[in-house]
């Protein structure tokens, strides 16, 4: 997966140019790099990018214009993959974003710090562009710590798998992260879905949504 056409919206020049340079280095095309929500809407209308990367907080109000623009864009075009970068783990924002648009397109919510994990960041962008859901591990960690009651039925390993699933990782990626076979991962997943009364779903994307919805209670 390479050669994505990306629109970047970020008000900080240093970060905006840095991300643009990094994505170009990985062979993607940055068709527009803009500094506020209105420019973002215009750029998306004009370029029809494969994926949008946007900051939550942007001029003029420096509140959550970027997030609102992302949600609007997804409402107008549910096929548009959007990766939102946030300064903090704000579940409220993550939730609003995940509930936005339709299921077909990918959506991502990552901490801005993850930009530093260059490879992971570029992979996450590709995953979102491919229509998957990516959620920052920090958000997942908080969600897991919040819903402790029903989770105690899970084994420690199943909880680990659940966390990685919620981040939007594929079975293969989970297997790599835990250094086990994919078959073992599939077994854990089936068992934990059963324990949590979640529908066993082969579709990665819907599965992530189900897990997140469950965790958000």
């Amino acid at each position: 997966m390479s050669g994505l056409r990306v629109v970047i919206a970020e008000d900080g020049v240093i970060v905006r140019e840095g991300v643009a340079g990094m994505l170009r280095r990985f062979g993607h095309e940055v068709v527009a790099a803009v500094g506020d929500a209105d420019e973002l809407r215009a750029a998306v209308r004009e370029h029809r990018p494969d994926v949008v990367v946007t900051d939550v907080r942007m001029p003029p109000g420096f509140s959550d214009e970027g997030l609102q623009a992302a949600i609007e864009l997804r409402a107008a075009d549910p096929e548009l993959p959007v990766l939102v970068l946030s300064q903090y783990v704000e579940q409220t924002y993550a939730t609003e974003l995940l509930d936005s648009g339709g299921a077909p397109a990918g959506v991502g919510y990552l901490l801005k710090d993850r930009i530093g994990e260059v490879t992971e960041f570029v992979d996450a962008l590709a995953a979102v562009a491919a229509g998957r859901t990516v959620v920052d591990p920090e958000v997942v960690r908080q969600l897991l710590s919040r819903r402790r009651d029903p989770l105690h039925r899970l084994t420690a390993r199943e909880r680990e798998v659940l966390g990685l699933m919620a981040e939007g990782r594929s079975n293969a990626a989970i297997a790599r992260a835990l250094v086990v076979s994919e078959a073992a991962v599939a077994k854990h997943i089936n068992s934990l879905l059963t324990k949590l009364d979640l529908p066993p779903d082969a579709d990665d994307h819907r599965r992530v949504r189900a897990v997140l919805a469950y965790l958000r209670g």
Partner: protein
Amino acid sequence: MPARNALEALTLRPTVFLRSSWPWRSLAYLASGALLGAATILAVVGMLVAGVLLSIVVIGFAGYLATVLSGIAVGRLERRRLRLVDVDELPDPHRPPPRAGLRAWLLVRLREQATWRELGYTMMSAALFCWMDALVVGGVIYEVLTTFGAPVYMQDEGAGSRWALFLAGIPLTVVLAWPVTAWAGARAAMARAILAPRAHDADEKLIEVTRSRARLVDAFEVERRRIERDLHDGAQQRLVALSMQLGLARLELPPGSPSAESVAEAHDLARQALTDIRELIRGVHPKVLTDRGLPAAAGEVASTAPLPVELDFTLPGRLPSAVEVTAYFVIVEALTNVAKHSGATRAWISGTVTASRLVVEIRDDGRGGADPAAGTGLVGLADRVAVVDGTVALASPPGGPTVLRVELPVTEVSA
């Protein structure tokens, strides 16, 4: 026990009283009262006439206004004059105007109860008191003239009766010291009762103080937001960029080489710095509170708590920011306490608005026995809440459960 005012002076031993300055001071008080009264009558009548005559034009209104405000001048003079017959000074009941300029001063004065009390006093003084003062002073003068002046003006009487009257004047005059002082004392007591600051005026001062404290809190909040913005736009941006550059550098370096290791270490440090600054910024000002309001912000706090927290908020809309911020920090502090001291396994936070008060309750199933005096946290909380005129109640019997209940007045709710 020296006398503190004219009325107390009356209770002194006659010898002490007569040798004291009280009778003279009383006389001076009444004489100046009569003069002030006369001046007031002239001034007020003058202003009212001017007001009536000029009422065809707008300036007439100024005449009426001046009449109303004349009480302030009279009140000030009266408070000063009172020192003649009263040791205790009367404090000024007026509040200082918030801004310089005539308009601000006028607005404050016309809203104050004290202004209208002073006007009432001025009117009573002009209509009644000053006449009585004049009567008493006139009576004294008449008595002194008729008795001590007898040898001079009673030329057609016999010398015996003239000097008898003269001599009778001495005890008469001495005796007069008491009614003069008594009337001066009574007059001063009335003036004091009307012109002294009331609890109501003090309340206004208190409200003013509270308001200014609230303003301070608001200013503080604005400042926190500014700091948060600066940190976010400056240091955080640079750290993100730094972390990204280091991440890119790591990709270039051959794995396992010494340079790759030191860059990896630098990358880790940058990552930690980012985490630190993120937590710092959150502590300075919770952005989600500004953007989404109290329930959302409480949710964020709950999600970072080390124990499960159930939320139950039913709010009619966004609350005033001072209330939201206070409630937010109450929740942060309370959950910190729960996590640190209570040994609880669960906590519940509820928030409702009833009878224009926001009631926030934080419950836990811990061991109880929380002591407000033990930790500064609760005291600090109470201070924060007091500024916005709220109350804090804590129930924490040994064995639990602990309930912290905070009520904050809510003036306006925006949807």
